[in-house]
């Protein structure tokens, strides 16, 4: 006999036979709307005017040209990393170590920038960027090697390599690459102008990196949707057995996913240190590599979706700062918002893929 009273219906999730394409696209939008409504409730409970709070959070940051450029600056690394991750995730290749590949890109590219600090040539920047991409791709290739050679779980290897990269950077700026004129503080010299990405809008930090991000969205979309490799990636992800039967080489796709996503994370890393930062610091990322995982899923593993998801995510960070300055909301609200957004996104996804059924109507008998 169950102790649960008989009149409480039990609910079960039942897989929908057909998943509506319309709702797959609409669900993130509904999730955002629901998040905004939750925001109104949260702000009201905190004794703030909810409409004013939503305005300062989501609209005021982009009411100036400078605000828009800052949004793009903040979103750029998320786009670059997110598109790369989406490509791998499509094929069920789980690169969780973008944070490390980002950092390695910053190390390789930043090292090149420091090496060329006395060279006044326009070739310095391409060299720096190239090394950044190579650094990230190299760091991504390591888990690919362990996966294909030893079948080691790439989630673990890529994640743990992140910490190695971050500590390696810390070692470099505390030791050999420390600015000799910097009182032993752990920072490299500032990069020369020839190693810096050109700024696009005067008096802002918007730089060439954001143009790369747009290009990467286009190229990523072509790769996934219009190329044979993209087709193979998708088949491997959706139906591994069919892919095997069709003769697609799984190990090749693992290598491809990891070098592409690693290279793009490396590009994001070098674009960050050669852009807004301008030198190597003990830590060059406030967690972009991990946030980009959320962004990739929020964007439905589609490059254009990733672009929008990055903008939403970047806005939530900048809006949080703005809300602290303008109306004194605590910093924790930013995290709360992001959490609520993810919760609603996942909840909507569940409802898109499954339907809720009350089990009491399925069968007359109870267990």
């Amino acid at each position, binding site marked *: 006999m169950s102790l649960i009273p008989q009149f409480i219906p039990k609910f079960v999730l039942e897989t929908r036979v057909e998943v509506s394409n319309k709702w797959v696209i609409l669900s993130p939008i509904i999730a955002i709307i629901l998040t905004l409504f939750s925001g109104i409730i949260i702000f009201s409970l905190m004794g703030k*005017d909810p*409409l*004013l709070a939503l*305005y300062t959070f989501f609209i*005021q940051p982009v009411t100036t040209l*400078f605000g828009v450029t*800052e949004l793009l*600056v*903040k979103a750029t690394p998320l786009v670059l990393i997110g598109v790369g991750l989406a490509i791998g995730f499509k094929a069920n290749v789980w690169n969780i170590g973008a944070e490390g590949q980002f950092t390695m890109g910053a190390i390789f590219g930043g090292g090149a920038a420091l090496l060329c600090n006395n060279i006044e040539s326009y070739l310095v920047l391409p060299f720096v960027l190239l090394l950044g991409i190579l650094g990230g791709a190299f760091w991504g290739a390591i888990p690919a090697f362990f996966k294909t050679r030893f079948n080691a779980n790439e989630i673990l290897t890529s994640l743990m390599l992140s910490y190695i990269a971050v*500590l390696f950077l*810390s*070692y470099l700026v*505390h*030791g050999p690459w420390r600015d000799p004129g*910097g*009182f*032993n*503080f*752990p*920072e490299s010299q*500032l990069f020369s102008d020839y190693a810096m990405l050109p700024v696009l809008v005067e*008096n802002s*930090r918007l730089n060439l990196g954001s143009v790369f991000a747009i290009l990467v969205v286009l190229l990523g979309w072509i790769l996934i949707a219009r190329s044979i490799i993209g087709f193979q990636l998708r088949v491997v992800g959706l139906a591994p057995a069919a892919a095997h039967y069709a003769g697609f080489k799984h190990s090749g796709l693992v290598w491809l996913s990891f070098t592409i996503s690693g290279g793009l994370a490396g590009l994001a890393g070098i674009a*960050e240190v050669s852009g*807004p*930062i*301008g*030198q190597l*610091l*003990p*830590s*060059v*990322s*406030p967690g972009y590599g991990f946030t980009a995982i959320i962004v990739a899923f929020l964007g439905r593993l589609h490059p254009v979706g990733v672009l929008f998801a990055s903008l939403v995510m970047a806005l939530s*960070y*900048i809006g949080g*700062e*703005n809300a*602290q*300055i*303008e109306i*004194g909301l*605590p*910093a*924790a609200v930013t995290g709360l918002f992001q959490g609520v957004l993810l919760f609603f996104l996942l909840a909507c996804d569940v409802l898109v893929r499954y339907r809720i059924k009350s089990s009491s109507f399925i069968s007359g008998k109870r267990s």
Partner: protein
Amino acid sequence: MRIKSFYREILLSLIAIALSGVGFANAETKVGFVYVGPIGDHGWTYRHDVGRLAVEKALGAKVKTTFVESVKEGPDSERVIRQLAATGHKVIFTTSFGFMNPTLKVAKKFPDVKFEHATGYKQSKNVATFSGRFYEGRYIAGVIAGKISKTNKIGYVASFPIPEVVRGINAFLLGARSVNPDMSINVVWVNTWYDPGKEGDAAKALIDQGADIITQHTDSPAPLQVAENRGVKGFGQASDMIKFAPKAQLSAIIDDWDSYYVERTKAAIDGSWNSQDVWLGLKEGMVKMAPYTNMPNDVVALAQKTEDAIRDGSLHPFSGPIKDQSGKIVVEAGKVADSGMLLGMNFYVEGVQGSLPK
């Protein structure tokens, strides 16, 4: 009715927004604060926020203060600082070392705004720097530890191997060895300013290695709480943490920014503000010691005597002879370490275990 009042609310908010956007001319000066941690860390950031409240209290309606907490060092901080400058803040305090270059970059674009950066070494026309001589407090804590410890081992939870932190470790041991030459320090680097879990774990590991005095250069009370639970002694960091460890806290090194913040804000308002670099200690009251507790009276007297001697200048914590780990004399007898050595300190004194991460 309901719908009507809803529209009215929208209208009112829009008006409010418009008004705040225009920034009505009024006499109050906006003062901004950028914090690296949460105001509830009960350490570093908490004390800066106490300083902010002191400004509000002292200057009342003349000022309006704003703060942004948990700002990541790096590009995010530049945006926050710039946002404060762009929204009419006339004095901006940036309170972590990593905000140095972002502060300078923003300051260049806002020549009329006064910037105050804590613990940095670069100044400009409208960027002043300030910091406390916390090593003076560390030395006193070391003296107490040297008297109290039975295992002769100090456990030190450290954040990042920057000169400021290394200086604290050395000062602590120099103080301890001034009363007990057998004292040694084990250091655990946690590579964070604020992570109570990591800080606490480091303290546990140090106690397991035999340390019976725990001290920390991180921002949370977690190491001291571990000391309390494990029955060893420790020190509060940045603020008086006696509430977290009524039986374990021997004293605490308190950062007191109140009078500096009030004074500098006043100077900015009356136009006498100028760029400067100050490094203030016990004498000026930027560094204070919490009451000496949980120790015998003779140790209290010794600690008080040491504190007085540092305050009146008769004792300098970094007086020679000082040897580095290899036994080489780096400061000769009768001399004190010069400010270059103090500011860029990157060696351990004799008695610190392990090597300095480089």
